């Protein structure tokens, strides 16, 4: 099963390679990973998606926590949370397909961010599944290039 794990860590040199090294060394999967600074100087938040049975995911969270630079590890999969991913997609946009591209972009509340003679670059954000659905719809039209961020996630506030 897919898990979303949020890691609060100290922004020390080499900390990312400690994390990726842990995954490669122990044969764990990383499906996506994104990291950026938090409000507190010197701390970063890393969101990673991984998959495995409960025993493996338990090991992953424990092993992450064991890293000296890591402050907090939360498997937020079972909690109520929002996740977002962004993709930039360059798709063929010729006279016959332009309207279709714009229509799909619209359905996913995306935006055209660059217009070329024969292509549009569009931006979509959403859950990983939503972004994937958009990609799947655009693919038959002809995707020329695609860049995706990793997923970021945040637990919802308790009301």
């Amino acid at each position, binding site marked *: 099963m897919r898990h979303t794990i949020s890691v609060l*860590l*100290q922004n020390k*040199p*080499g900390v990312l*390679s*400690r994390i990726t*090294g*842990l995954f490669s*060394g122990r044969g764990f999967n990383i499906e996506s990973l994104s990291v950026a600074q938090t409000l507190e100087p010197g701390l970063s938040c890393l969101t990673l998606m991984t998959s495995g049975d409960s*025993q493996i995911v*338990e*090991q992953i969270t*424990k*092993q992450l*926590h*064991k890293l*000296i*630079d*890591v*402050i907090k590890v939360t498997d937020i999969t079972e909690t109520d949370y929002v996740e977002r991913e962004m993709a930039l997609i360059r798709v063929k946009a010729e006279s016959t397909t332009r309207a279709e591209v714009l229509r799909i972009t619209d359905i996913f509340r995306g935006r055209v961010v660059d217009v070329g003679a024969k292509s549009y670059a569009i931006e979509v954000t959403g859950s990983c599944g939503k972004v994937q659905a958009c990609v799947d719809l655009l693919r038959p039209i002809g995707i020329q290039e695609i860049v995706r961020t990793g997923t970021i996630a945040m637990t919802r506030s308790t009301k």
Partner: protein
Amino acid sequence: MKITGAQALLKCLEEQKVDTVFGFPGGAVIDLYDEILQSDKLTHVLVRHEQAAVHAADAYARVIGDVGVALVTSGPGATNTVTGIASAYLDSIPIVVFTGQVPTGLIGNDAFQEVDIVGITRPCTKHNYLVKDVKDLVPTIREAFYLARTGRPGPVLIDLPKDVMAAMVNFPAPKPVKMRTYQPTYKPHPGQIEKACKKILQAKRPVLYIGGGVIASKAHEEVTELARKLDIPVTMTLMGLGGFPGTDPLAMGMLGMHGTYYSNMAVARCDLLIGVGARFDDRVTGRIDAFAPHAEIIHIDIDPTSISKNVEVDIPIVADCKHALAAMNTWFDRSDLFNEEDEKEKRQPWLEQIDEWKAEHPLSYAKDTNKIKPQFVVEKLHELTGGDAIITTEVGQNQMWAAQFYHFNHPRAFMTSGGLGVMGYGFPAAIGAQMAARDRTVIDIAGDGSIQMNIQELATAKQYNCPVKIAILNNNYLGMVRQWQELFYDKRYSATTLDVAPDFVLLAEAYGAVGLRATKPDEVEPVIKEALATDNVVIMDFVIDREEGVYPMVPAGKATTEMLLV
């Protein structure tokens, strides 16, 4: 007043109560060595290969129960330490390794003798550092020692660029290390302790399974009290030997691949397994689904990642072994549910069953009057040292025979590369142990193959008057690998015959040490006696029965009850 980085480092060592450093110099650490020359507080032991410095620091740490220190130069000096660091990591031994590094301005330029040792050792250290600014030097060293010795101990590496050693800095006043990101759990959860104790009272066939964590946390007294209070038989991992007196009637010796018949049977039949500071390693469990199949499992460990990693645990207790065992002992002392006599009476059938197994298949070997049996040598070493020596081992059959036949009664008397299994560990470890315990007898039980992996340390032993004794169980084979080839590869002895071997007696003499040889069983005792009476480094070359094997043996991947017996 400002001092140089090198001077600050030496002050830190003094602050950490380090009196001995094992090392080897080079360009990147030349400033540091210049300071060491002027220090009257620090003994520097010049090894002959950096790997040996780390093994020696490892054994030194084990003997004193605190941090061992190694110091090497950049590049090849640093890469030579990797095996030693990995061994200390897998055995959870507290060491701090200082490596020289090229000046900060050259880092990343493929400079002469530059390697990214922090990158290389990331997966085999508890933590590591590159100190880029001299202002960070002292806090980093303090943190490194703190990390090495607290929680689950382990090796920490500090990479020191040459310019940082020369830069000037104010020495900050000592203050206790506090880390937001690192707070090991020492105290057990009282609810878990109560649950565990009640579970123990319900058990009919409990087994204590203790590992290196008992020794690391200095919990041998607590574990002994618990075992004797409730008459619980005790089995030990290789790393746990000495954690409980090996000659105690409740002791069952080692378990696992070369464990005793009765240990493995007891684990297979027990209804409660109490793991203490052990990690359910594959050499212990054999086929995992057949390991302790009827047992509920209590597991005490300071490292949460060890719990439920290989084997599902029923009652996890994250804590320092010493604290957890003490809490359990107190619980029993105070509880109305516990009555020592009733408990011991209840245990009788189980202990009788174990005695039956002991009688059925004791640890034994086929005696011989013409050929020296390696087990006989180890038994004689035990007898003639009164079981009181510090024993180190190499790796292979020699290591297993030492573990099986030298019945360790005390902790911190057995040093072996358990997790990594490094051939070449034992001799430098013996030097490290001897530096820490000048008045003890230190013996490296060695194989003829392994001893050649760090034989150059004869010079170190001589130079620092470490009268260590090396007992080579010489089978002229890479014996353990040969044994596998005999059993599982139809005796196809590929690359395990040591066709060219040195004359170890002459070799000892070349270094100014003493060489003795025994080729017949009745020569064993005189040779050992002479060695023990010699105030010099001695190599005892025991020419043993070549094809002797280590038994019992659980073939890899089999259930631990599927033992090949003598």
